[in-house]
């Protein structure tokens, strides 16, 4: 039970949603919308394509210096000494900071578990900061790094999460390598297995995957007296602001963070990192603006990963397909500091399908590698790999169709979050509509093929934990005398099309084109607080606030119209881009309002209201995949994929489809090409560039990816009817591909990734 739930008279009750605010709870848009639901190119498409968009890494300031960071090359080492004297003497070098510069070495903790410093004397992972320099060119900064002499004492390390739990393993921190332990149960797991006709148990492994955004992690820092401005590539400017203020012991009001564009993040830029502090320190010491972006290699070594995960799942079902028990054990690696190594890892096991008897156990592990960071649907992507392959295996054992087995076990609500009903039947809709659009029955019945090229189809389904959004969010809309608008919001557009969606909401309300809306966003000095853009919650958080801001401004315009026309306020109706009287006799365009002409602007403020607490607002997804496997070489070709999503109202079909295609592409990488490789003997990262760390290319994703949205508006979710999409689109991909490979080959691939290197041995064993 959560804190907001109260038990009254033996029954769980939920507090009522608060009053919906000054503008009243507005009517839903309904089925007929003018702009919402259409395909709108991004409002900043030209800027992005032409290169005129200024990303943080593009920022150039007068007198700006370039910084570079020296990081530990060892998996675990004590820093005995740092000699920066040669680097300091180099021409063009303005500042060098390290543990020797005490006034530039503030406290820093990666999690809350173990304290440290910006430049700490114990680097528990490769890539931790040792020194930083600022010089008048990037080349000179790197020359200076080469001139720094560091003496390390290398220490025993452990880089495998299973080895870390063995007795006698080197300890990342004193006191053992277990970073956390969680368990959950409902019903009676033994009785559940006893009631089953079929029980299966399998262990799956999911390799660590790296976020690898195109724009590296970093920022530009500039001081003006005691005020600091930081341009950072981030998912949340306010999160960066608070971390910098806390670390540097500064008032929030004196730290300004701007992040108008971000060249990819995928969860790895939800928070800032040591680079922002180092940039601020270098800037203060050199009295110049400083640009500090990590190198590509450094982003791979230390700027985030999806934790490597080992999952054992045991599931039981009756002959008719009813699930009777699910037992899930997951081990995941946080890295050298506690960082969510098993975050959300068991949720699909305990919440995707109807099952009365469930137990889960999660063990988070310290290893000598960079701390994990949230990566698009953390935990869910890994769990789906295990859970959805297990469902496929159960279906085969039960001689049932995998689609039919899933449809038989659809829950009415969330079972692990207080038995609240779902607001939609989204899971069923996704599976049924997806199967139909994909032609599942025909594809499944089709022959595998002759010879060594064999085809197969597979599918997987998902829900997503967040995706509902919620407070806080405050948005300000300024409507100008000419009828154009300026929308002011704190949220970042991390490339998903947030700005475009918000412009469409404004355009819908005022009968204008999205092009008439200018957006000011992601600047802590000039926009209102917003949480970081993550968790697929940006649209359901911000769009309702935007709509409320519009409604507040419309309310004032209607007041003006009533006064101007000498009518009662309730006689005025907003219709398209005009204000008219209910009797239809008189109407005014916005620029014809006399008061607006005089005061030049009307301001509407919108706040995100709390969600209903008596329901679970959850997005759903299903994906279908057809593969062809070359039995001689282990090559797999993804012939086609289809993604169905129920995330409430589709606001922009174009960016919706972009999310689906991008999410599937990312899932293809997870399932077939990507894996972090840490060198066994040294613990160092082997694949630290974009050749060795293999993101999928255009030739690796299917030529045919179809996005099939479930067209509905989730009116119980919020006043725009939309839920989150960006993560559900990537959760089922891996499982769907693995299941299709099984259908084609009869080989159950339990470890990511599936490619010739991993598939050829089981294929060869089958040949005998």
């Amino acid at each position, binding site marked *: 039970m959560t804190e907001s739930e109260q038990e009254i008279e033996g029954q769980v009750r939920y507090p009522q949603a608060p009053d919906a605010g000054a503008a009243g709870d507005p009517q839903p848009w309904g089925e007929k919308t003018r702009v919402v639901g259409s395909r709108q190119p991004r409002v900043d498409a030209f800027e992005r394509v032409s290169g005129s968009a200024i990303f943080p890494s593009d920022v150039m300031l007068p007198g700006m210096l370039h910084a570079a960071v020296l990081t530990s090359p060892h998996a675990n080492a004590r820093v005995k000494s740092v000699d920066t004297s040669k680097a300091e003497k180099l021409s063009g070098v303005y500042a060098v900071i390290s543990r020797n510069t005490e006034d530039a070495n503030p406290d820093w903790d990666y999690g809350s578990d173990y304290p440290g410093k910006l430049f700490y004397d114990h680097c528990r992972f490769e890539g931790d900061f040792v020194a930083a320099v600022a010089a008048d060119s990037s080349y000179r900064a790197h*020359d200076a790094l080469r001139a720094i002499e560091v003496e390390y004492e290398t220490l025993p390390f452990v880089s495998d999460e299973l080895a870390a739990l063995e007795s006698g393993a080197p300890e990342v921190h004193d006191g053992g390598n277990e970073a956390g332990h969680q368990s959950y149960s409902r019903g009676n797991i033994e009785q559940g297995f006893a009631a089953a006709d079929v029980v299966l148990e399998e262990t799956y492994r999911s390799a660590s995957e790296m976020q690898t955004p195109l724009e590296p992690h970093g920022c530009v820092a500039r001081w003006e007296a005691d005020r600091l401005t930081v341009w950072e590539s981030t998912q949340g400017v306010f999160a960066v602001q608070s971390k910098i203020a806390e670390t540097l012991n500064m008032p929030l009001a004196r730290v300004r963070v701007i992040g108008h564009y971000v060249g990819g993040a995928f969860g790895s830029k939800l928070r800032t990192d040591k680079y922002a502090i180092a940039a601020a320190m270098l800037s203060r010491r050199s009295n110049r603006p400083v640009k500090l972006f990590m190198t590509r290699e450094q982003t791979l070594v230390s700027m985030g990963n999806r934790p490597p995960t080992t999952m054992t799942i045991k599931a039981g079902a009756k002959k008719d397909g009813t699930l009777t028990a699910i037992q899930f054990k997951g081990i995941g690696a946080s890295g050298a500091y506690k960082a969510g190594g098993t975050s959300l890892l068991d949720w699909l096991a305990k919440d995707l399908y109807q099952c009365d008897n469930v137990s889960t156990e999660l063990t988070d592990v310290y290893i000598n590698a960079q701390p994990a960071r949230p990566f698009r649907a953390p935990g869910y992507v890994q769990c789906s790999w295990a859970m959805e392959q297990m469902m496929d295996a159960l279906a085969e054992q039960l001689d049932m169709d995998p689609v039919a087995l899933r449809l038989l076990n659809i829950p009415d609500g969330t079972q692990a979050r207080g038995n609240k009903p779902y607001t939609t039947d989204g899971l069923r809709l996704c599976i049924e509509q997806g199967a139909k659009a994909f032609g599942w029955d025909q594809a499944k019945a089709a022959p595998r093929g002759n010879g060594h090229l064999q085809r197969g189809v597979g599918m997987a389904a998902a829900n997503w934990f967040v995706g509902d959004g919620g407070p806080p969010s405050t948005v300000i809309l300024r409507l100008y005398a000419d009828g154009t608008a300026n929308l002011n919001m704190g949220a970042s557009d991390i490339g998903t099309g947030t700005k475009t969606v918000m412009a469409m909401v404004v355009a819908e309300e005022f009968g204008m084109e999205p092009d008439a809306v200018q957006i000011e966003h992601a600047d802590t000095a000039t926009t209102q607080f917003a949480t970081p853009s993550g968790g697929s919650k940006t649209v359901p958080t911000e769009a309702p606030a935007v709509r409320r801001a519009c409604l507040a401004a419309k309310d004032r315009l209607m007041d003006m119209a009533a006064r101007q026309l000498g009518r009662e306020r309730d006689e005025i109706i907003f219709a398209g881009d005009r204000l008219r009287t209910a009797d239809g006799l008189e109407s005014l365009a916005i620029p014809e309002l006399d008061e607006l002409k005089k005061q030049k602007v009307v301001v509407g403020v919108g706040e995100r209201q709390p969600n209903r607490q008596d329901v679970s607002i959850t997005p759903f997804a299903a994906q279908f995949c057809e593969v062809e496997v070359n039995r001689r070489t282990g090559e797999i070709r993804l012939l086609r994929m289809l993604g169905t999503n129920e995330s409430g109202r589709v606001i922009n079909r174009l960016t919706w489809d972009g999310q689906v295609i991008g999410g599937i592409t990312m899932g293809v990488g997870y399932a*077939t090409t990507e894996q972090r490789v840490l*060198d066994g003997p040294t613990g160092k990262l082997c694949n630290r560039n974009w050749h060795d760390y293999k*993101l999928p290319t255009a030739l690796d994703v299917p030529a045919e990816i179809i996005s099939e949205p479930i067209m509905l508006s989730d009116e119980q979710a919020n006043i725009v009817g939309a839920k989150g999409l960006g993560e559900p689109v990537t959760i089922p991909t891996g499982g769907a591909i693995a299941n299709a490979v099984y259908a084609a080959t009869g080989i159950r691939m339990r470890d990511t990734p599936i490619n*010739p290197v991993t598939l050829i041995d089981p294929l060869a064993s089958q040949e005998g």
Partner: protein
Amino acid sequence: MFTPFAYIQPGSVEDVVTALGDKNAFIHAGGTDLLGCLRDDVFSADKLVSLSGLKDISGVSETSDGGLVIGALTTITDVAEHPLIQRKYAGLAQAAADVASPQLRNQGTLGGNLCQKPRCWYYRGDFDCLRKGGYKCFAVNGENEYHCIMGGANCFIVHPSDPAPALVALDAEVAIVGPGGRRRLPVSELHMPPEKDPTRETVLQDAEVITAIHLPPAAAGRYSSYRKIRTRRSWDFAVAGCALAFDMEGDQVRDCRVVLAAAAPVPWRSREAEEVLRGNTLNDGNIRAAARAAVADARPMSNNAYKIPLFEGLLREEFGKIVSA
């Protein structure tokens, strides 16, 4: 980041050779590999000697005996797309088309491709490995899934080139200019086995430069092909590959070359497979026997035994295509 270096652009091959005599000088052709090595501190250069000032070192032309000569500075794209190469030396065109990515093929040159450095992540990374003058090969006890299963000795790289095995299969030669004058060398003898010298990729002497690649006339009935398997379908090096050149009479193999890519530190001619097939019928039994013979002497490392069934399956598939061609 680069350390500082001098850059010159001579106008004649002779001047290039002279300039290469300077300390720590490197040739800059397409630069796709060189600049990466310099940026990643794999090695540093005091001087780069550009070939872009040379005339008559790129392009494809027929020779009087019916062969081809390809200038060393010809881009990989031009090799892949040249109609004569596609028609008479299909294996080379296919190998070129499988190189890297479109951008890299547009920039990279055939001569440079033959002389490229290995992609071993220990060699490229922050490891003091044998090939860089260090004390050991880190792949031996490390992450060696992409390393060699034949010809390893002391260093266990695989040769990264796709065109090189195809050129070996086609009996090509390189034309070399150096301080000692001009010479020709079969491509099959160009690459340095690590047991002879693990710090060099080719047998080129100091200040020698490849100026052209010569292809002998193709026999009538010649079948040639290149096939590459990788973990992603573009911008990736082979985990297994094979270049074939077969002279057929009906279903009889008159003569053949079977050259493996990503099997060994050098393009690896499988005389064992050739022996099974030469003079014999290309039937299923011989195909299986030849594929097996090719990997019979493989000595896999801890993580790359998968390459044995992979090469076997690959060769079976590719030999089978000759029959249906």
